[in-house]
């Protein structure tokens, strides 16, 4: 085992690899922070640059970009309440709240330390548990994925804040919106209205930008009409590192969850970050702080989505199966460089496999270094005059949603969701449950129908499969536990 470690680190201990890691992380952080450039898009855009490179340099570069952009997404989430990528959507809830309370430095530091911890934990899982976890990935069929989606939707109990009913309403809007596009089983068009672009459904990125960034801009414009705009005055103060590291339990907990979810093909970083958030809240001693600037609420999703980076490489390297959009780009890139990911890779290209492992570790370290340099800069950005900040956000929102797919339709979708987000906030409804519905709706519907096709229409398939049954029970518990918790605390106080 030690030999493999040494092999891995010595493979990447070259000047080109070092440059690739540093450049990759910096590009990743910046692109991750920009809305519209998600991890998978950024990695895909980098692939052509690797054409002439040595395979290991190319792969290490792409993994560093992946790692950096999973962290980078949280920067804009925390600083301006606009998630840089879908997996940082849930970070907005508590991260942006902390910024409003004048503590952006602390939130950014927790996100960075959490991301680094998660990244290294993911690498460790990749190194030590690749084989057993690959079997976990294979044990998930259609009924299991359906139940996983149901479990994911049950997270609503932690996202909804005080009013579960409102949360449900908003989540169902998201579920409804996820049905737009071509029906995957009959080829029927649903709510397409003759727009060819709509056949693929609503892209998650323009929806996110609209819901968070554009909606914030609309709200701020309204505020500025009522009163003179107050400039948020924040200066960077060195956060109390005792507090940051005091969250180690959350980091550990979220790394484990992130690693397991990351292994499952089709689940990915966004679902992992939601589950980590909800689980962190479930075990937290300060549940009441969630949604009002909880430090754990920032640590959990950010740690979880970086743990996914290493874990998502497990099915890729051991089975040749991409487990996320980003991983499928990596498969393409590996094949371009004549490396066939799959069961034989450990034998044929051991240096590459352990080099990749070392690359995940070193990119986490590089991310820590450059992240630390970045934090005071981001804090300065927040203190920029509001009108300038809002103008920049608007421009970035339009460019980001257009650039996502070079389509003006996405810009209209983004603006539509901006209005939706604004209205929801105005009438005191939570916004994040829409994202939950959008992300999980397709997965749930597709696998429900597929499971019934396999079983010949027999619904018992969901409870006769043990993993599926287990997930459904946990879903029911996590949905009911807040209600029970409330009842118990009520009865003890009275």
């Amino acid at each position: 085992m030690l030999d493999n470690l040494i092999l891995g680190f010595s493979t990447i201990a070259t000047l080109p690899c070092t440059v690739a890691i540093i450049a990759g992380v910096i590009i990743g952080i910046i692109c991750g922070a920009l809305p519209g450039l998600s991890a998978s898009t950024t990695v895909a855009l980098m692939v052509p640059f690797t054409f002439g490179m040595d395979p290991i340099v190319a792969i290490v570069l792409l993994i560093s970009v992946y790692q950096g952009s999973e962290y980078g997404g949280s920067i804009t989430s925390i600083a301006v309440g606009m998630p840089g990528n879908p997996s940082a959507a849930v970070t907005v809830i508590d991260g942006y709240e902390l910024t409003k309370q004048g503590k952006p430095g602390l939130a950014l530091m927790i996100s960075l330390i959490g991301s680094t911890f998660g990244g290294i934990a993911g690498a460790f899982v990749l190194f030590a548990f690749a084989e057993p976890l690959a079997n976990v990935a294979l044990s998930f069929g259609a009924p299991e994925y359906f139940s996983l989606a149901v479990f994911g939707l049950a997270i609503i109990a932690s996202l909804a804040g005080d009013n579960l009913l409102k949360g449900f309403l908003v989540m169902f809007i998201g579920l409804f919106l996820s049905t737009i596009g071509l029906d995957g089983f009959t080829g029927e068009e649903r709510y397409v209205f003759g727009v060819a672009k709509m056949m693929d459904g609503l892209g998650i990125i323009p929806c996110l930008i609209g819901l968070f960034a554009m909606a914030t801009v609309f709200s701020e414009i309204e505020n500025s009409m009522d009163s003179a705009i107050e400039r948020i005055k924040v200066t960077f103060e060195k956060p109390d590192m005792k507090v940051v590291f005091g969250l180690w339990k959350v980091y550990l907990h979220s790394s484990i969850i992130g690693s397991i979810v990351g292994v499952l093909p089709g689940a990915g970083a966004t679902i992992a970050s939601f589950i980590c958030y909800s689980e962190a809240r479930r075990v937290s001693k300060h549940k009441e702080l969630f949604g009002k600037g909880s430090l754990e609420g920032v640590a959990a999703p950010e740690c979880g989505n970086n743990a996914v980076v290493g874990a998502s490489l497990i099915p890729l390297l051991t089975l040749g199966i991409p487990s996320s959009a980003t991983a499928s780009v990596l498969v393409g890139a590996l094949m371009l460089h004549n490396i066939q990911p799959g069961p034989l890779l450990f034998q044929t290209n051991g240096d590459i496999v352990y080099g990749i492992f070392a690359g995940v570790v070193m990119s986490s370290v590089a991310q820590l270094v450059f992240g630390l340099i970045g934090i005071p800069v981001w804090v300065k950005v927040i203190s920029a005059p509001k009108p300038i900040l809002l103008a920049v956000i608007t421009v970035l929102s339009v460019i980001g949603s257009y650039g996502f797919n070079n389509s003006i339709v996405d810009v209209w979708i983004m603006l539509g969701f901006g209005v939706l987000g604004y209205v929801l906030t105005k009438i005191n409804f939570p916004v994040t449950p829409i994202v939950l519905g959008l992300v999980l709706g397709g997965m749930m519907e597709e696998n429900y129908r597929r499971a019934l096709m396999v079983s010949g229409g027999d619904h018992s398939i969901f409870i006769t499969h043990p993993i599926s049954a287990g997930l459904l029970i946990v879903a029911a518990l996590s949905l009911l536990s807040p209600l029970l918790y409330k009842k118990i605390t009520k009865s003890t106080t009275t």
Partner: protein
Amino acid sequence: MKMKTFLISMIALLGMSVTSAQAAWPEKPITLICWSSAGSSHDLMARIVAKVSEEYLGQPIVVVNKEGGSGKVAMSYVLSQKPDGYTIMSNTRSMTELFPDTTGKLSIDDFKYVARMVRDPFVITVRQESPFKTIDDLIAFAKANPGKVTIGGFSVKSVDEGLVKDFEKAAGIKLNYIPYKGGSEPVVAVLGGHIDSVVSNPGEVNANFKAGKLRVLALATEERFAPFEDVPTLKEKGFPIVTEHWRGLMVSKDVPDEIVAKLNAAMVKVIAHPEFAQFLKNTNMYEGYMPGAEFAKLVKEQTAK
């Protein structure tokens, strides 16, 4: 009089500039529209074609992804651009087969077909633990248990589903076709034992086939091919089914023939280039050059079905 000379000279000038524009093509970077997402195997092909052909065209080719509606968005975009040969697009069988569906807005004749570039054949696969050792086992079981054998593939109304339907008809069996959103998803489901079999391209099964975790039962090609030399073709088994994916290049029908010819000449050189050959080998695809006229005929045949 003066006006007349002016007009004549203008027309002459215009004519000259048109011919010289064609003669000099390409004078500026070319945009290659790809309807698949960045990083997909179709996109990778577009990018390698762009990279290699720069050497022969003397101008860079920029790949732009326009996803949506299985290629309808990309096709409408290409037709909306000036037909000057600076906007070209890569096409796939799954895209052109949609022509009958596109409610009269887009048709086969809106495009000129430059060249077919690659072929991607189909194979039928089960997992190692499967009781089906040969395609005959599968057929025999399916005959005795209609609709009991599940077979996965990519999407509905797709080439994959077409192949399954042809196979059912030829063998006189009934299978349970389960559509998936991507090409590798059903392969994962077979590996995990969630479905019995899968139709897919070799690239999706190769790694696990070599590792002995998957067993390829039949090939939907004319001849056997590497690395499946021990596997029979459906043809050998008496089912005349040959189904393959392909990818190529096309342009708007208003692009001058000279430019199409130049593009075609460049593509012939691209296919002969060692870097392109290496790309095909690495991604488990096969060279499938076909000149424009023949290519157009093939598209028409497959669409008419």
